[in-house]
Structure formats: C-alpha cells, structure tokens
C-alpha cells in the first residue's frame, strides 16, 4: 500500500508526514509526530478525548483521516501554552483542580478553548452542552464547568 504525502500546519508549524490511506489523524499525531497529548478514548467520536481544532473547527481526530489534513491547520493540546506560559484555561484548571487522572483533559481544554473563541460569555447551560461531547469519568464535571466559566469571566475582564 503506497503511502500518502501530507503537508499540514500543526500548532503553527508547517509539517510534512507520510501516512497510510487508512490511518486517522489521531494515529499520525500520536504515532508519527509524537504528539501524544491527544488520546483515544473510544475511536468512535463518542468521548472527545482526541479533540483537536481543524481549520478553526472542533473535531474528533479519531474520525478524520490523516490524508484529509492536507493543506489545513491543525491545533492540538501541545500548542495551547506558549512556551512556559500556560493558556488562561490551563491556569484556571490548576486553580480549580478541574482534572484528576488527566486523560480526558487535553480534549476538554481544546473543546473549551474553541467554545470561548466562539462565545466569550457562555452560560452554565451553554458550557455544559458544548462539553457534553467530552466524557470525563473522574470529576463529575463540577470543577470543569466552574473553571471554564471562571476563565471566560477573566478573559472578558482582560479584553
């Protein structure tokens, strides 16, 4: 099976990779590019642990073929902090202890960031609905919702 050559922008860097036609973008991120922050929790788009931003849109990278990334922009959890400077969401997640085992956390952060870019002032209900695609088995969601709303408030104040 011949491999496909793909050029994509990943976390701002132009990146080239070879992939099998059957490989998912999640496979390539994790196994070829060593970006293991995105996780496979189900492989069927039901848990959100593999959430990434593709051309500004929140998607499950387990449902995207790697070849589809050609010419597109991919944002993963690894691109969220700027060097040692954490994104406000990451800061607030620490402040609220809004994570436990951490396996779903990258997906939740990516999804929450995408929400706040679209809606800087979400209601509790809007945050809950937006994050309903991201399963977390540890936290009961309480602190996650609070951290996202607190981040939104702080970012509105700073803007």
């Amino acid at each position: 099976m011949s491999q496909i050559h793909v050029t994509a922008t990943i976390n701002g860097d132009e990146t080239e990779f070879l992939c099998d036609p059957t490989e998912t973008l999640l496979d390539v991120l994790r196994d070829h590019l060593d970006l293991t922050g995105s996780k496979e929790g189900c492989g069927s788009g039901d848990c959100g642990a593999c959430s990434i931003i593709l051309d500004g849109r929140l998607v499950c990278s387990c449902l995207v073929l790697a070849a589809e990334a050609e010419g597109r922009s991919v944002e993963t959890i690894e691109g969220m902090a700027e060097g040692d400077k954490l994104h406000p969401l990451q800061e607030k997640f620490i402040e609220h202890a809004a994570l436990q085992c951490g396996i779903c956390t990258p997906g939740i952060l990516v999804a929450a960031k995408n929400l706040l870019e679209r809606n800087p002032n979400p209601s509790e209900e809007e945050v809950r609905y937006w994050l309903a695609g991201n399963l977390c088995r540890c936290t009961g969601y309480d602190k996650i919702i609070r951290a996202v709303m607190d981040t939104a408030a702080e970012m509105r104040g700073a803007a």
Partner: protein
Amino acid sequence: MPADGGIGAATPRREDVRFLTGAGNYTDDINMRGQAYVAFLRSDVAHGKLKKVDTGAAAAMPGVIRIFTGEDFEGVGGIPCGWQVTDRHGEPMQEPPQPVLAQGKVRHIGDRIAAVVAESLEQARNAAEAIVVEIEDLPAVVDMKKALEPDATKVHDDLKNNLCYDWVFGSDDAAIEGAFSKAAHVTTLELVNQRLVANPMEPRVAIGDYASHSDESTLYTTSQNPHMIRLLMGAFVLGIPEHKLRVVAPDVGGGFGTKIFHYAEEAFCTFAAKALHRPVKWTSSRSEAFISDAQGRDHVTKIELALDAENNFIGLRTDTLANMGAYLMTVAPAVPTYLHGTLMAGCYRTPAVQVNVRAVFTNTVPVDAYRGAGRPEATYQLERLIDKAARELGADPIALRRQNFVTEFPYTTPVAVQYDTGNYHGTMDVLEKIADIAGFEKRRKDSEARGKLRGFGINCYIEACGLAPSHLVGQLGGRAGFYESATVRVNATGGLVVMTGSHSHGQGHETSFPQVVADMLGIDPSMIELVHGDTSKIPMGMGTYGSRSLSVGGSAIYRATEKIIAKAKKIAAHLMEASEADVELKDGQFSVAGTDKSVAWGDVTLAAYVPHNYPLEDIEPGLEETAFYDPSNFTYPAGAYACEVEVDPDTGKVEIMSFAAADDFGNIINPMIVDGQVHGGIGQGIGQALLENCVYDETGQLLSASFMDYAMPRADDVPFYAVDHSSQTPCTHNPLGVKGCGEAGAIGSPPAVVNAVVDALQSGGHKVDHIDMPVSPARVWAAMNNA
C-alpha cells in the same frame, strides 16, 4: 490555619501541569524500539466448545510474527483469584481455572481464543480475523436464578454446579427469627443493583519487554497496584521470580477498581515478549474494554426490615444473588461478602442483622470491584428499604433514620465490624443546612406550577475503607497482606524523595502525600518528590483501591517520617552538643529547648551523608527510612446525602435539580482534592441511578457495548454539587486521623436519587414504591402509567 502547603491546605495539584499540556506519560504513550503489536481473537458467542482453531492461513499473512492459542499456555498457570470465601457449611467456594487463552471452551463474549503478534496493529487485527474457528454452541447461562436451577447448563464442566458459594453472615437464625416474630411492622423490598461498566477513559494497555542478557521481564501496564500484578503474574501465572520481573504503572487514566485486577492480557504480553525476544504491545479498544474489563455490581436482592411499635429497627435480613460472571477475578468473591455484608447494619443500631449471599457463575464478562465495591450495593438496599418503611409508617424519613442512628462509639455491629468513631447526627445537621431542606416545600410548589413533579431523597451511608488489617483479612479468606509501604529518602542537600506503594491515577497523591511530610518536618512541600508506580523504585506495596491510599499509605509515610525525625534529632543533638531529649524540630529548624542553640534541616541532612562530625559509634550515616503500616481496623467514613429531582410527568424524564453531600472523612489533608473525589463519586452514582446499564440478551450477547449504547453521564446530565466535610470525627487508630474519601460519592448518591424520584412520583399521586436503576424515562413513565 494550616501551614503553607501542609496538612489542611488546598494546595494546587503539582501533577496538573503535565496533564494540562499533554505531557502526561500514559502506558499507550510508551513505544518501545522494535515493538510488535497484539490483537486478540475473542469469542463472539457466550458459551461454546472450541472444536477447531486453525491459524494456518492467518499465520501466513503479511507482518504476522506468531499466533498463540490455548495450546501454547498448557502448563502455564491460570489467572489466580486472590480471595477465598468459605460457604455456610464451612466448605471453600468453587474456584474454576481461568486460562490465559481459552482451552476447550469459551465462556463469555470476549473470552480470549487466540492472540496474533504482528509488525503492525492493522496486520495483527487482519490476521486475527482470518483465524478459522469452529465453536459448538452451548446454551448460555445468563440469568442468575436460572443458573441455579438443578438442570442448568454448567459454565464450568468440572464444578458441581454454577454456585460459587452460599454465604451467611451476621446474627444467627434464632436471633433473626426472634426479631421478625415480634415485629410490629415488616417492610420488604426486592431490587436489582444493575451491572455497570467502570469505563475509565483510558482503556487498558499492556507492554511486555524482555532483556535476554539479564533474563529480566518488564511489564508496563495500566494498573492501580503494580506490586500486586508482579506477585500474581510472576508467582502464579508465568513462574518468573520477582527479582526478574519489573512492573511499571506510569500515569494511569482512571481506574475505579477495574484496574486492580491481574488480567490475562498482561500475562500474555509478558509471556510473548520473552518468547519472541521483542517488546509486545496491546492497547484495548473501547469495544474490547466493554467485553474484557471486569464489570461491576450485578446483585439481585430481597431485603426485609423488622420494626417495633415505636419504629425502632429490630431486625434486618437480606437474600442476595451476586453475579461473578464466567471466571473469578482477583477480589471478586470478597465484594458481595466482606465488602458488602459487613456494612449491612449501616448507620443504625439494629440488634439483629443477617446477610445471605449466593454467588453465581454465568456466561457473562467477569464481575469484580467497581468504585465502592459491595458498599454501594449494601447502602442502596438498606436506604431504599428505610425510605419505603418510612412511607408505609407515615414517618418522616429523616426522623426515622435519626431515631435509629448509632450514637455511641466504638460500636460493634451484628455483622462483625467495629465502628471506631462517627457522628451521624452531625453530618445530618450539616446536610439539613446545605440542602436547605426547610425550603423544599416552596421549591416543590414552584415545580408544580411549571407542571413538574418535584421529589426529595435522602440517604445516609457508612462504608469501610482503609483495607485492611492483614490478620483479619487472612482469617476472612484474603490471600494477601493489606499493609502499605513507604520509604522516605532524604538527600544530602535536604530534599526528599518519598516512595510509596500506593498508586495515583487521579487521586492527587503527588500533591497530598508531600503535604503530610512537609507538615511534619516544617519544610516547603516543593522540597519533596513523590515516586510511585514502578516496582523497581518503590518498596513492596499493595496499591490503591478501597479508599485506602491516605489512611494506609499515608500512615506508612507518616511512620517512615517519624523514623526520619527520630534519627535526625540524634544527629542534631550531636551537632548541638545537646541531649537528644531536648531537641525540638520546628519549621525545618532543630533547636534545644531553653537555649539559643539551633541547626537547620540542611545542616543535619548534610551531616548524615558527610559524617565528619557525626556519632558513628551510635548511628549509621545516611538518612533513609522505610515503614510498613498495617492498620488495626478499617476506617468508617459516613455521611448524609440529599437529592432533589424534577420529573416530567409527560415523558418520565428525570432532571437532577440539586445534590448535596455532607461527609465525615475525619481529618482532611487537602480539601480541594477531597471535594473533587466526592464530585466524581457523585457523578458516577448519578450515572448509575439514571443512565448506565450493562445489558446481555438471553444468549449472552452484550447489547450495551459502546458509548452509544451504554449511557455515560455527560456534562449536561449533572448539576453543580454542594459538598461539605466539616463534620469531622478523626479516625482513632491511624496516626493521621483520616478515613478515606474516594468512594463515598458513588456509595451515597444512587439511593438519594432513586428515593427522590419515588418521592416525586408519590407527590403526583402515583403509588410507586420502587423503580429499578437506571431510572430511565421509559421506566419512570411505565411506573407512572401502570401503577
């Protein structure tokens, strides 16, 4: 006010930065040079005779390195069970073997028939599909009652029948009969505690590695207790001496019990790596997890409560069928017995309590501990029953509970445990405030005005944590010790490494355990690093489950740190030319009482490793101590929970309007972490109460084998929770006075939710006594319209 970063401080979790940046190191993130990939061929029928497993064509497919079948594991040990229950006649339970790969029969959907090792995962999966298997179907035993009928098909041909054990515990027959014969009122309830799938968001992974030059095997695995895996797998399955076997459980993405057990996939990868001289990696898909992770709960119970004319509880008896599935997993026999029957007295001083449990083999995925393990089942039965009794008697459900609370401690129950301390009125007082119980009737009217039925549900739980006194566990059939270990290594420059046998997979040990040491030494917690999860680095430890990490593991750290302080004081006394008895340690500074003499922590640690001016005739150089802590009793966290729901009478949909939890965990090390543990438990408990259900059809097919079919609680299914742990009665027998908080939420929440739903329906005039979980819209609607 707690010291900075010491005991009681809401210190931010130090492990979080790596998780938040995607830098966690979970097992599936590990890739070994030259690794091969495993795909298991699993049974798609629940029960059958293996007539043929033809691997010929599959073995010739591209990339296939080798295919293993049951024949390769003849002579290799089976997966062991760690607990033997003795039945009511004094006989040992029936204990069938569990081969690594099926031998002769398959006994559940997902049973392992063969394993393909190939150069890529896709090649392994393709070859597994190409293996030709002939299975002669046998009738599947799925329903527990049918499994016990005399002519039932046997899950294991070599056993007498499908009964694992018939166990009776607590008060004798005469005491129970006496209580029920003089009862003024008897309340009876039959209920199902449905089967659940733990579903940690990280599926299981195992990587076997083998170094031929040293004959050393290494297993990287998603485990809550790496030493236990090393012992079980090394000694009982593969025959690898422990000094030639290393087990590493790095960052682990949630466990909830299902990562306690030793699984065949771990043994397979370790075995295959040695056979092939290559690293061998298996990553469970979610579909595979649904049919291969041990599942939880699955009890069917009849419970009866006898009350006298003044509404005092005078007798309680239960009759439970507990599903073991097809094989016995590591602690499965203990879950419906010693983790369930011993808690049946609840928070109440019922003088006669008798528990009967029959454990049953069926052609379903094995069942073992899931968050709470036996205690949620006990609490659910008892607290649903008390609610029903209150309704039948026209009593207030809170008043009826308060009237029967245990109030004097220590209290020895009729089911063999001794509660060392507690204050059940205290937690109820807190609950009445945080749940604003006084304001409920107004909220009910508001709901009614919107066309909704509002219900209020209460629950009081008690649990036993801190597993466990080893001598007691040994008497009860446990085949392991349940101490915990810690080594505290002080470096020359004053920093510390604490090595614990506990394992953190979300509990925040890397933050809270150093808080204990920092508090004792009066130093900054950033000087302390916690190491866990690698048998080559930590002392022999028993791991994390049953809310034991802080009460047992933390106590081991406490004891080791005490030894450090004792030795450091000797060194400090020498340096200050003072008597050891006069040396005090405060804020990281040693001083002599009543003088201005002092030496800093760092002076003492340096002296320990550069012993130029040192009492070598009295003590050895170095500053490193190990402690093994074996508790003298369980700990008994308890609390009172309240739930308010709204039921839509047109659809049966239940919405949780509020949830309040008042817990007594004894002393608290990090309140922020404790809040999170309770939140998570409540989330899972609401999941059980409203959503989750693991369903097999009559042929043993699993109908709920994906997240589309098995409803996990999502962010929009739950409310914010009001939690409070200010009512504290410190544990009397461990040095930290702590009790454990990991399971409380999952234990305390399901009865509160179901009690609230029944209350809502009753308020609408529906004569509904009980609805089995999950209380789905369909079930609620049916109950409203058939009742």
